[in-house]
């Protein structure tokens, strides 16, 4: 009797479980997994503007899209630009956010909440809106950045119009926008460091810099790794900043991978080719993520 009851219970409860997970799992399958698989298939086809009218015109071209990418100077340009952006923006973001976290973690500081808030505000605000604001901040004649630089005797600079400066200008804005987020994570990391480590070190006569080097930095290593991965993955998806501030120019110097994918797919409707670009992006992000999984043995526990 008790045995049959148990099996019945188990059965009814697993029906309930399927009822609970159903809506989420089904929507993730339809609107995420199926599109990902479809994108993979598309990347081996010549899906283009004619195919939008009639799917019959689509042909498998196998690896041709990927081979074409190899010979496409604009693709290499976008890849190079994006890497340049990531390589510049990642360490800068980490440096600024770590410094801010250390400052706000100092015991001397009162009113931490207010400073933390003002550093954090840019992160929650709408990227498109702040990119528009920064576009005017960078204005060569009336922009406030050149105005402030004028105090230091620096002549007006055409930030977004100079091919060599446009990407660094976007980097600067990104650091301003994002450092508050990483700062919060760093503060959490700093608060997890046991206080007695520092006490022991000061008894042994270690100075501030030495404590930072031998306690703070090593103890923050997992946090720093996590932040690096999140930053790199996020920064590789650069799109809205150049779209608003430079439209990929000047001389395609701020064209990003996602920007190129968008142009090819949704401007020129070369959707097969565009899909292959999106898979290159996926591949890059996958490599970065695998490094994280390797470093942190069990991400679920």
């Amino acid at each position, binding site marked *: 009797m008790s045995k049959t009851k148990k099996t019945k219970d*188990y059965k009814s*409860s*697993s029906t*309930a*479980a399927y*009822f*609970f*997970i159903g*809506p*989420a*799992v089904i*929507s*993730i399958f*339809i*609107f*995420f997994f*199926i*599109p990902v698989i*479809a*994108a993979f298939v*598309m990347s081996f086809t010549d899906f283009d503007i004619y195919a939008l009218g009639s799917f019959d015109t689509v042909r498998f071209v196998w690896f041709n899209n990927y081979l074409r990418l190899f010979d496409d100077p604009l693709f290499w340009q976008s890849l190079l630009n994006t890497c340049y952006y990531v390589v510049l923006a990642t360490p800068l973001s980490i440096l600024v956010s770590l410094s*801010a976290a250390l*400052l706000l973690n100092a015991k*001397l*500081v009162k009113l931490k909440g207010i400073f933390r*808030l*003002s550093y954090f*505000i*840019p992160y929650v*605000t*709408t*990227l*498109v*809106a*702040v990119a*528009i*604001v920064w*576009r*005017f901040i960078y*204005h060569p*004649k*009336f*922009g*406030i950045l050149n105005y402030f630089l004028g105090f230091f005797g620096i002549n007006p600079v055409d930030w977004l119009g100079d091919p060599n400066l446009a990407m660094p200008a976007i980097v600067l804005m990104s650091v301003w926008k994002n450092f508050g987020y990483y700062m919060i*994570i760093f503060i*959490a990391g700093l608060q997890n460091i046991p206080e007695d480590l520092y006490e022991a070190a000061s008894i042994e006569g270690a100075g501030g810099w030495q404590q930072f080097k031998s306690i703070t930095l090593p103890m923050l290593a997992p*946090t720093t790794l*996590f932040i690096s991965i999140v930053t790199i*993955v996020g920064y590789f998806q650069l*799109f*809205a900043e150049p779209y608003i501030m430079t439209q990929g120019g000047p001389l395609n110097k701020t064209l990003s991978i*996602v920007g190129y994918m968008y142009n090819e*797919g*949704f401007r020129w409707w070369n959707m097969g080719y565009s899909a292959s670009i*999106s*898979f290159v*992006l*996926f591949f890059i*992000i996958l490599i970065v993520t695998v490094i994280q999984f390797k470093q942190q043995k069990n*991400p679920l526990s």
Partner: protein
Amino acid sequence: MKKVLLYTFLIITSAITLIPFIWMISASFMADGKASVYPPVFFPADIVIEQYNHLLTRLNAARSFFNSFFLSTVVTLVSLFFNSMAGYAFAKYRFKGRNKLFSLLLINMIVPSQVTMLPLFLMLKSVGLINTYFAIIVTGLANIFGIFLIRQHCLTIPDSLIEAAKMDGATDFQIYRKVILPLALPVLVTLGLFSFLGTWNDFLWPLIALTDESMYTLPVALSSLMLEHTRDPELMMAGSVITIIPVIVVFLVLQRYYIRGVMMGSVKE
């Protein structure tokens, strides 16, 4: 002395992070052409609201505002409902394939969403749903990040509570509704906040999926305005203000939950 230096530094750097917003707000209250002056003005001499009038009367900003607000609200409510049910079941039920399914769903976290956009566009276009609210809502129905956070929280809820409710004759859904949801409230607020702000701020997919001006969300409307009105900083700043202010207000009211969420997302991984 050290303290003075520290505070000076903190105040200057906070000012730097806030100056763009101050300039934005002040320029938005200037008449045409008044923000394009040298040296820049940080407080308008005459406060005028003509830019806001222009946005509302001629550019239909109210409609975009409504679109953004409506979509963010719907996505938040639906995703909270779907994610919380799934997170609860993954934590507290034993069913066939549970762990495998959960691992499979984790792929959701590493594939960049841009990959799905081309087929999603074609799928929705073939059923006539491009340029509808539906096109935005379907991409936000559920996500593994939300399921994961709720699952983690539900794991901390003692089984005895659920057993007790069962003894009292509560159905599975009643337990979810009356026991689990109230206990998970802090996580739900955090997740809801993420999802509201995420939908409000989202750009690339709305740019692709919403093709008609009357359907634009604020970021899409702003970007299209930007490409036409490059020379009207005052108007663009007013547009930025109405886009950003709601975000800042929502964040300020619920910042405790937001900050906690940022920390949960990082510490758990």
